[in-house]
């Protein structure tokens, strides 16, 4: 059951895709959502590193959140090099897409922060 209805925990899945690969010898990605709903993304549980998957150019992390996901603040920062196309999606358990954004990095490190 969705936490958006205020009925317990739900799981978010963050997926960072670099369709054309990175422009950096290593890719760093970390972040998460304001899982406790206190207006800050600051705890170790909320800010966690993404893990590289077996699929080339895909980094993911999963997060269990207590607060309602609707309108929840999230922030993700990733270092992939400048001029790199990226796509960030945030799914709720059940497959519902809560956020999707894509662009091309201007700086080597990009930060995306918005509300679900």
């Amino acid at each position, binding site marked *: 059951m969705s936490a958006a209805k205020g009925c317990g925990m739900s799981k978010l899945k963050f997926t960072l895709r670099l369709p054309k690969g990175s422009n*950096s*010898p*290593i*890719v*760093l*990605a*970390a*972040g998460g959502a*304001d899982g406790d709903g206190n*207006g*800050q*993304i*600051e705890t170790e549980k909320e*800010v966690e*590193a993404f*893990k*590289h998957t077996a699929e080339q150019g895909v980094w993911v992390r999963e997060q269990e959140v207590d607060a309602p996901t609707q309108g929840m*603040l999230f*922030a*993700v*920062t990733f*270092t992939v090099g400048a001029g790199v196309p990226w796509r960030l999606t945030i799914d709720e358990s059940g497959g519902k897409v809560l*956020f999707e*954004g*894509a*662009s*091309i*990095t*201007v*700086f*080597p*490190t*990009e*930060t*995306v*922060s*918005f*509300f679900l």
Partner: protein
Amino acid sequence: VRAAVALLVAAGLALPGVASGEDGQGDSLTVLPWSTASLVVSSKDTRAVLQLSDMTDCGLRWTGSVSAPLDSDSRVAAFTNNRELGSGFKATLQIGWDRDAKILAAQAKWVHEVEALVTALTAMPIYAANGRLARFATANKLPSQGDSAVWSWLQKRWTSSHATEGTLSELKESDAATIAAATEAACDGSVAEPPGCLLGQWFTVQEERSKTYPKLLKKIEEMPKDLILPDALLDESKKLSKAELPQLVADHLGEISAYLATLQKEDATARLGAAMVTRPARAHAGHVLLGDVAFSVDTKSVYGGDLSTEATKTIAYDLVLGVDYSYLPTVAGLSVNFRGGMERSRESGAEEVERCETIDSDDPAVSGKDCTDVLFRSGAQPDAETTGYARGAITYQLHGKLNDGEVLPGVELRGGIDGLFGTRVGNGRLSLFATPLKDDTAGRFGLAIDASYAIDRGPMESGTRWTITSLVFVGASFKDLLGKP
């Protein structure tokens, strides 16, 4: 540099009158030297030791010591006597190279530096963590693509406001510092959080990251060739190309850092002389190459030829030059050591005998004698001779986590031949030992059986060729007892 004072206190089996040309570690185990400050009770020798030892991050290892026998009556060890080296004085120096120590130190330093840069790049900017960036995007109807969108928005704003200013019509990254300085002033802490304040912080972060990122790239280029990785990552690393290794390291920085910390802790324990440097589960074997120099001198009063004459001063000495190589296989706790070298020595040739003087008596039915143990030599002092030695040892020490309160048991088997090119003697020793750890102190106690076999002997010599003796040792090393200069 660590300084050490060691006391070797013992019973009975010392070798009076004979200069000992043993290697610098003859008091204990082959690959576990007493280091830092030690108190050792051994049944083989009785001496006080002043020792200095150190192992630098560039791989240089050295141990130097001077020692002198402890007088059983005065409990004083005299290093010098009347401006001469004291009887039984011994000095040793081991100096050499520890390949693993150098690799470990270099990688640990590299990993820590990479960690710091990664932390800086993955740290969440406060304006993102507290939602200010999200609110800014909402207020300005940005499509929420983060920095890319903010930059695009700024460029449009800048272009429209500076359209008539020629070269300034386009916002460039090089303008970031100027804009950051100008907009930072707008941060007044108000609840309204004016965009200027946000943009000032935003530019500052981008500028810092722009400086940090090239440092990370440079650091990655400096990645050590011989990566020291935990077991689980070793197999994975073998499947990857060289270009893919940095990502593996980045993905597992925390694990690698923790693993290196364990190895460094082991190194520290090894420096305390409590555990071997084995670095369990290494990708490659370890190598430690040292040079040995040992010098000992012994001055004794010896009766030559006739016990009724005055005893004369006899000097025996021993000088050893050799090499010491330790091979550290990938099997945790196992070490194989080889030593070889040349020895120039001159022995006193004296043996301990009981010398008695008859006490006069007027009554022929009563007689007495006053006896003392003295050193006696029937002929002239033997000439100095040059011989060689070759020794090998295999040691196994069960490794724990090297925490306080742990006891690390071990066993060592060593064998070798002394007196090469001369009178050869085969030697062997089996030692069982245990090392309790407590804070910066490492204890050690053990039991050993020594066996020697006279390979060569003169035609007139008879009796068994075998000599079996036992040895017990108890001791402790104290880290930095004398402080670090």
